[in-house]
């Protein structure tokens, strides 16, 4: 049976996140009081795992690093069909960049059990780096394929996948265990079902901190992050807008006129 790990990130609800301001003390984003949702690309990572489980049978463990409310996102993944959830939560983990995040996740994955494949979304909607998946692979000494859009052959321990590439894709052969980061083209995540929610009630979510992981605080969170945010500069707008007034049709006419004057139509 396949042992699958899916890494998910609880991200601030994008509509609220747009209004976020950086915390001047921690130099990271205050996330505690913003509604959290599953990072959209991570739901495709989970769906990939669920499809394999259906096909071959698998044990799926969810790993997420975040503040305690991120546990709800882990619970959601269990309701969708994952078997076990591990939330890495510790004040010492706060302010982690991609490097420290990947290191912490890798330490936890390593500690848990042998793993055949790790799925991650190719990027997060808030941090918007694409580094956590490949960096986890590095710390686990596993190979990685990023931006996978299709799993062509998933039999045995040699897989063939299609991954995004300039103007097309690349066909990659990989040997498990491996890390795969996924794009949204890979699949269509299914919505939550009521029976899934009920079943998830009996599933286990563990909370791990740095002591459980036996890693010193210097290697996690802000302290363990090679990169630091030093400054945030608001940008002022440079254009003075003219709002086009009138009825719908008048607005259409005026816009056509503007386009015409610009030589577009």
């Amino acid at each position: 049976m396949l042992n699958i790990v899916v890494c998910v990130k609880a991200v601030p609800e994008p509509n609220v996140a747009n209004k976020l301001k950086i915390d001047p003390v921690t130099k990271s984003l205050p996330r505690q009081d913003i509604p959290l949702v599953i990072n959209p690309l991570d739901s495709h990572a989970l769906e990939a795992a669920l499809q394999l489980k259906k096909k071959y049978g698998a044990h799926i463990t969810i790993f997420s690093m975040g503040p305690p409310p991120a546990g709800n996102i882990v619970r959601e993944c269990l309701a969708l069909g994952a078997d076990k959830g591990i939330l890495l939560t510790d004040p010492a983990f706060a302010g982690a960049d991609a490097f420290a995040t990947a290191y912490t996740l890798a330490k936890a994955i390593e500690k848990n059990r042998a793993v055949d494949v790790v799925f991650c979304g190719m990027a997060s909607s808030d941090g918007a780096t694409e580094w956590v998946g490949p960096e986890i692979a590095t710390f686990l000494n596993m190979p990685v394929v990023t931006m996978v859009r299709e799993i062509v052959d998933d039999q045995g321990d040699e897989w063939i996948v299609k991954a995004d590439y300039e103007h097309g894709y690349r066909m990659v052969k990989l040997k498990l265990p491996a890390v795969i980061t996924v794009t949204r083209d890979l699949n269509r995540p299914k919505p939550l079902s009521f029976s899934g929610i009920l079943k998830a009630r009996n599933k286990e979510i563990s909370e791990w901190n740095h002591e459980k992981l036996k890693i010193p605080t210097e290697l996690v969170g802000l302290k363990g992050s090679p990169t630091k945010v030093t400054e945030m500069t608001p940008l002022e707008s440079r254009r003075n807008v003219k709002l086009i007034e009138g009825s719908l049709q008048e607005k259409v006419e005026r816009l056509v006129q503007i386009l015409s004057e610009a030589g577009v139509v």
Partner: protein
Amino acid sequence: METESAAVFVLAEKMEREIQPVSLQLIGKARQLADELGANVGVVLLGQDLTNDAQKLIAAGADLVLKADSKSLVPYQSELYTEIILKLMVERRPEILLIGSTFMGRELAPLIAARLETGLTAHCIELVIGGEGVLEQRIPAYGGMITIVCPEKRPQMATVANGVFPNPVLNPARSGEVISIEVPRNLPQRIQTIEIIREKLEGVSLETASVIVAGGAGAGDQEGWDQIEELAGILNAGFGSTRPAVDAGWTELETMIGQSGRMVNPDLYIGVGLSGELQHMVGIVGAKIMIAINKDAKSPVFEKVDYGVVEDCRVFVPALVKRLKNTESYAGKVAHVI
């Protein structure tokens, strides 16, 4: 020499016989940073048949080109590339390593950064030498610009998208050193790129389009999205998107304009149903006329454009398309008569 220990490196990339434009742009930027630091510019190039490429990299500003020329390096193989580059970085210990945000670069950069235990900033739009020679790496976020530094670890690593920095003026008279690198054999290959397949010819290229229509979450659904696409078609415009539209599944990631997507340089830009997020707006370089259509009069997008239409794009765009179609058929008839 002093300069040996303080270098700015660029990982260059050759694709389908051409050095990627972003590689040359980064060498131009590296030249500027290196001059400020009193350092050299080194370039790493891996591939096949590279005989004539080193001079081009030198003409763009490189002092030193480290090239590995081997059949085994085409197509791109992540493990082999990582090992070669890692060895060079350990030997040369550069201050800075810049990598283009190509698919290859976006995969290799974190593999190299993690092995070197250093930081990596994603898709920068500004790189500046700050106090004590530290590289200030700027990315747009949360209504402003965030400056990220990597104060202790080296190299300071950043990825940058094509078009962020200008193409450098090539100076064929520049001279530099070229060193050939041995390609290791018998490395464990747990990952193997079998082949790279070119799938599609681009429609109207976003980078060269003089008119860009970009759609965002306000499209509402696929139907709303298709209406905006129709508008782009009628205007013979490049059709771009924002991240929420990509996340919603209405369009391909390849159409995303902005910091982690494409950089465009149109004469006229129309943003439809989008809120003017900085991550998107920084992708629009130097548009002469900017127009926004958004149903929310308070949308921040209206602070960033010349003309604003406060209407639901799902109502306004079909009306505009209808009107333009009439114009077009009229023009078509006239042309036919003539």
